[in-house]
């Protein structure tokens, strides 16, 4: 359940700098993520969104600055079972891997089972509960490669759910998934966020669908993070981040204007 009134930072990024080579890709990044947030991090390709995510997951180490997860410094953080991670599917996933859905989901029970021990029946119940939560209980025996892209992403959500996580991080989860499945996927995340109070952090370059669904947005661009306030025009922010006005909105308004002039013309002719 979501606890109202208490605002707790689950992720706290302070003055973080990071570089792969000579040049910094992230400079002086500050970000607070609160419990129960449904946060979207948007930005153009190559704006180091994934880098920021990997820093927050401890997969990369910042050169300067600090990152705290659930109140603990990342370098000594050990409650990894409370963190769910859904990787960028297109990059990381081997589609012909001979694993069934339940095997993939059960693998993440490691923190509950421990080294050298085997998966038992009671663990499989947790797996089925997680699959039920994402609506895939009927697919548990199927090969993961035989599912659709949308279903595969839901399997990865179920994989995160077996540990009852506090936060789920998702990296471009809807790439290559059709519009209808994308919508269902966002609805599922919303449900998990509202009903279970799971903090959700989602990275995407697809501004259109993400702004509709999340409750808070930050933009990345030019090595910086720019928070989006509801009262500032979104357009200005896009110019700041993407360097030009998005053709998407631009084109839409042009079309609208054209339609209006046409209509006026029509009326004038009549």
């Amino acid at each position, binding site marked *: 359940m979501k606890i109202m009134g208490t605002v707790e930072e689950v992720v706290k990024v302070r003055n973080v700098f990071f570089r792969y080579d000579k040049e910094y890709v992230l400079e002086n990044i500050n970000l607070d993520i609160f419990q129960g947030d449904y946060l979207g991090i948007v930005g153009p390709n190559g704006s180091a969104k994934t880098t920021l995510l990997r820093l927050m*997951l401890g*997969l990369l180490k910042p050169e300067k600055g600090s990152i705290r997860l659930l109140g603990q410094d990342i370098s000594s953080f*050990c409650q*990894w*079972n409370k*963190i769910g*991670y859904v*990787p960028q599917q297109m990059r*990381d*996933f*081997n589609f*012909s*891997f*001979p*694993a*069934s859905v339940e*095997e*993939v989901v*059960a*693998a*993440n029970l*490691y*923190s509950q*089972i421990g*080294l*050298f021990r*085997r*998966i038992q029946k009671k663990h499989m119940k947790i797996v089925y509960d997680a699959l039920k939560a994402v609506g895939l209980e009927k697919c548990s*025996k199927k*090969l993961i490669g035989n599912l659709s892209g949308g279903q595969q992403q839901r399997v990865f959500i179920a*994989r995160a759910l077996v540990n009852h996580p506090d936060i789920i991080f998702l990296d471009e989860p809807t790439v290559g998934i059709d519009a209808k499945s994308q919508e269902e996927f966002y609805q599922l995340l919303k449900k998990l966020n509202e009903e279970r109070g799971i903090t959700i952090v989602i990275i995407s370059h697809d501004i259109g669908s993400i702004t509709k669904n999340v409750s808070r947005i930050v933009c990345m661009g030019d090595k910086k993070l720019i928070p989006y306030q509801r009262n500032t025009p979104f357009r200005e922010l896009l110019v700041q981040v993407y360097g030009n006005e998005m053709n998407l909105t631009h084109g839409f308004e042009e079309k609208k204007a054209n339609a209006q002039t046409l209509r006026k013309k029509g009326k004038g002719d009549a």
Partner: protein
Amino acid sequence: MPKRSERREKEMLEILQYGFMQRALLAGIVAGALCPLIGIFLVLRRMSLIGDSLSHIALSGIAAGILMNIYPVGTALLFSVGAALAIERLRKAYAQYAELAIAILLSAGIGTAVVLISFARGMNIDLFSYLFGSIATVLEEDLILIFLLGIWILLSVKFLYKELFYIAFDEEAARLAGIPVKWINRYFIILVAMTITLSMRVIGILLVSSLIVLPVATSLQISKNFKQATLLSVFFAEIAVISGIFISYYLEIASGGTIVLLSVILMLFVLIGKGFLKRLRRTVYG
């Protein structure tokens, strides 16, 4: 006069009475279980050629052992375990080219082996049996080593099964789940080196990687989950090994090559059978 089939049966039982044949079968069965068991994780992690490079390193170990007059399988084991650890290091240095580490060690191994072999002329005959496998010459001391290492590897895979599976499927997520990925990877590569060393007696250095890869390739075609893929690959390997040993004995041909050829035939059989079934289903259901 007994019928032909009866005579065959009698012959079959007879060959099992020979000590060398018993040793050959036992060693073969162990290698047939271990190679695909290790192989499935290697293939899925796109490291299937590691068998080749470690076996070439093992060859230089054999040559060194023969030169220094030490038990060659022991030196081969030492060499290949050392090389296995080096591969893990090189894999990090060339993170974007996983196969490069394997190629580097393969060249280093064959280079060392050739130089060592050129030192001593007389050992060519001995080497030949290691290169192509000579199952009939498996000694009792070989068998003891094969069994001890075999049990160790089998238990290791059994107890680390879920960890190895997770690392093969998604190494990053495995790390996030708290699995000590680095240590398990190192330990696993040592298991690979041990498997190759103990199998080379049976199937030969040049052919050992095929027993690691082929049964896995066959089982990947038809398995519905990971457990099935593992068990089926062991099943296919055992069919090839056991029938290969008998066939090579009767036809008086090389056992290693026979086992490999049988594995290839099994794979083709499964591939063709699968394609045929697919076409049949399409014509029946439209």
